[in-house]
């Protein structure tokens, strides 16, 4: 991708520098389209998953006569806050019921849709904190039957689960590429053929008028490669799942007080969310860092603030428990040795923090 730093040019210019940039963008668009098995013109590049989510939500409302959004309370903040902002002038947001694993209640969804005033349903594919898989195809079928647009925040999905749009049946899908080893600063919104919403960022007429702004050639080029690599990551998933299961097994053997969130539900294979009773997530993260292992607590994007995980709270965990989560995720560059390192470090940290805890 660093080669692309040499491709100057504005992809909207007609001269050869611009055309070089255009080729990079078009090529990447084909690669991303392939990941979802759609046509290139169904792919709109954005600055990231957050913008994609905002674009889908604001756009769906603008395109609809209704002003109500149905979403799950375990969504990423980009969806929840965009939904709140989009409905602040007269609309409303309805939260779906979820169970202890975070799984949405389909009966509740159908009941809300039956009320006839829903503009958009937004439910993610893979939860970023717990790895839980939502029943995307079932949600899509319910929305289709009710004639309501369905948006999927799939930022965590590529490379983790199959992402064929036709299998999902969704109308709009948000993607972020740095979550799949690509660069930051680029994302996409994938549209089902025929779905159209107004522009969110106006100007310039780029992306067929659907998203203004000079194309981010470098990052888009990287995004294309990342999309291609997602297929390899998907093939690597059974290996990561084995690493994860090994680690989860070792952690559980350490203490039966430690809970694994959504353990019994369908989860993507790359992530574990541990609840360490009585140990604040951020202390565990710090302690692990001192042992040379980078992990996070709650959702990474909000961990600058010491707040309990809104995902766990929505799943019915009390606030003091929701502050005690540790998220461990595995990627292509992790090996069995890393898993061993983690288990050793975690064993030390657990014993130390647990002892401090009982002393207090």
């Amino acid at each position, binding site marked *: 991708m660093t080669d692309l730093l040499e491709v100057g040019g504005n992809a909207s210019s007609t001269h050869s520098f611009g055309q070089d940039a255009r080729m990079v963008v078009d090529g990447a668009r084909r690669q991303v389209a392939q990941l979802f098995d759609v046509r290139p013109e169904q792919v709109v590049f954005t600055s990231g998953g957050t913008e994609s989510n905002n674009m889908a939500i604001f756009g769906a409302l603008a395109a609809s006569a209704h002003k109500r959004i149905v979403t799950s309370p375990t969504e990423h903040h980009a969806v929840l806050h965009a939904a709140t902002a989009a409905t602040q002038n007269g609309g409303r947001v309805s939260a779906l019921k979820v169970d202890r694993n975070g799984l949405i209640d389909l009966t509740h969804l159908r009941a809300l849709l039956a009320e006839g005033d829903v503009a958009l349903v937004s439910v993610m594919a893979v939860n970023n904190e717990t790895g839980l898989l939502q029943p995307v195809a079932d949600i899509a079928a319910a929305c289709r039957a009710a004639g309501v647009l369905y948006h999927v925040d799939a930022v965590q999905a590529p490379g983790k689960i199959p992402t064929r749009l036709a299998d999902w049946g969704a109308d709009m899908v948000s993607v972020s590429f*740095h979550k799949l080893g690509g660069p930051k600063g680029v994302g996409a919104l994938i549209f089902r053929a025929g779905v159209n919403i107004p522009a969110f960022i106006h100007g310039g007429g780029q992306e067929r008028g659907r998203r203004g702004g000079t194309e981010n050639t470098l990052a888009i080029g990287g995004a294309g490669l990342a999309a291609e690599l997602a297929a390899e990551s998907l093939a690597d998933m059974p290996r990561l799942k084995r690493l994860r299961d090994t680690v989860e097994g070792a952690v559980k053997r350490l203490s039966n007080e430690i809970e694994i969130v959504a353990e019994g539900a369908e989860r993507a294979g790359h992530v574990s969310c541990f609840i360490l009773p009585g140990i604040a997530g951020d202390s565990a993260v710090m302690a692990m860092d001192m042992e040379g292992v980078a992990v996070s607590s709650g959702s990474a994007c909000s961990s600058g603030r010491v707040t309990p995980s809104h995902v766990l709270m929505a799943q019915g965990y009390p606030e003091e428990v929701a502050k005690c989560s540790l998220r461990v995720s595995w990627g292509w560059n992790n090996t069995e040795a890393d898993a061993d390192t983690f288990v050793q470090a975690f064993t030390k940290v657990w014993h130390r923090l647990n002892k401090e805890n009982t002393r207090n």
Partner: protein
Amino acid sequence: MKKPVYLDYQATTPTDPRVVDYMVPFFYEKFGNPHSRSHVYGWNAEAEVEAARAKVAAVIGADPKEIVFTSGATESNNTAIKGIASFYKDQGNHIITVQTEHKCVLDTCRHLEQEGFDVTYLPVEANGLLDMEKFKSAITDKTILVSVMAANNEIGVLQPIAEIGAICREKGIKFHTDAAQAFGKIPLDVDAMNIDLLSISGHKVYGPQGIGALYVRRKPRVRLNALINGGGQERGMRSGTLPLALIAGFGKAAEIAQAEMAEEHTRLLKLREYMYEEITKRLPAIILNGDREQRLAGNLNLSFSYVEGESLMMAIKELAVSSGSACTSASLEPSYVLRALGVEDELAHSSIRFGLGRFTTKEDVDFAVNLLADKVQKLREMSPLWEMVQEGVDLKSVKWAAH
């Protein structure tokens, strides 16, 4: 094939090799999410983001806390204009902007008109500059926002930002300027110029594409409703994971631009004036679009009368230039900026923007001048309009059959 000579620095600038070198490690060993405050990858990333923020702020005399990173100037302009309009809508619904603003400002304003805002699109004079009297008389007690660009992307003219800022401050109106073309090219001082919001683009200042910034004044405090909502990054004004490598590169680009601004301005001004003198010496009937003095040193926008624009572009394929603005050059509409100056359609069709920049040499300019002199002469020999003018026919007196 030999690469054409790049003279399109207002469309985008090549990333400075020093910026590239600076960015590369951030794709490999220096990765990390600057929002992960609990491990060392996150800390280092956060430190780099703050360093870049300070470098960008320094160019415009701002406090680093007043810089919000965005995906580029288009997003900055959208955020500033929609964000102010929606936050202050209870105080008034009138916005003033200019007909020659960048498409993204105009498109955003048109969108706001659909939402019930009144927008005044001020005309410009024949030199592309705003008439301050017309500006003053457009202000009403409902005016909440003025958005006027610092430097125009097509004709390079510099609007009287300081004067506009002073008036807006006095009247308590928020003042936004799209400085995508001006940042790092001309001195800008948000305090001295009373600027409340200022949009910046990374790739127009030798940094990477996909990154930009919005300056939002803290004292007196300017508030806005965010455009992109989510994790609450950038003090809630712009959510989304910060792209570390792009930000690092943008910061480096800002640092270089500031350090070299004065020297580079002098060099480019000399080069541009040389180019203009040489072209007009060798070709009659060349028209300069936009004021000659109040303009970016690296911009020359010329109309080659009696020659059609597309065939001229074909004839000078060895130059990478733009006719009209880069964002619209896929269509054949004459540039709306030139139209606003009162340039007739046929002259607008034959106008070319030459953008000179950091890597433009005198050899590049000489090559361009020679090529232009040769090709324009050939096309004029082929032009029935040129022939008629040589015969003394006033083209305006001809009754053309429009088709």
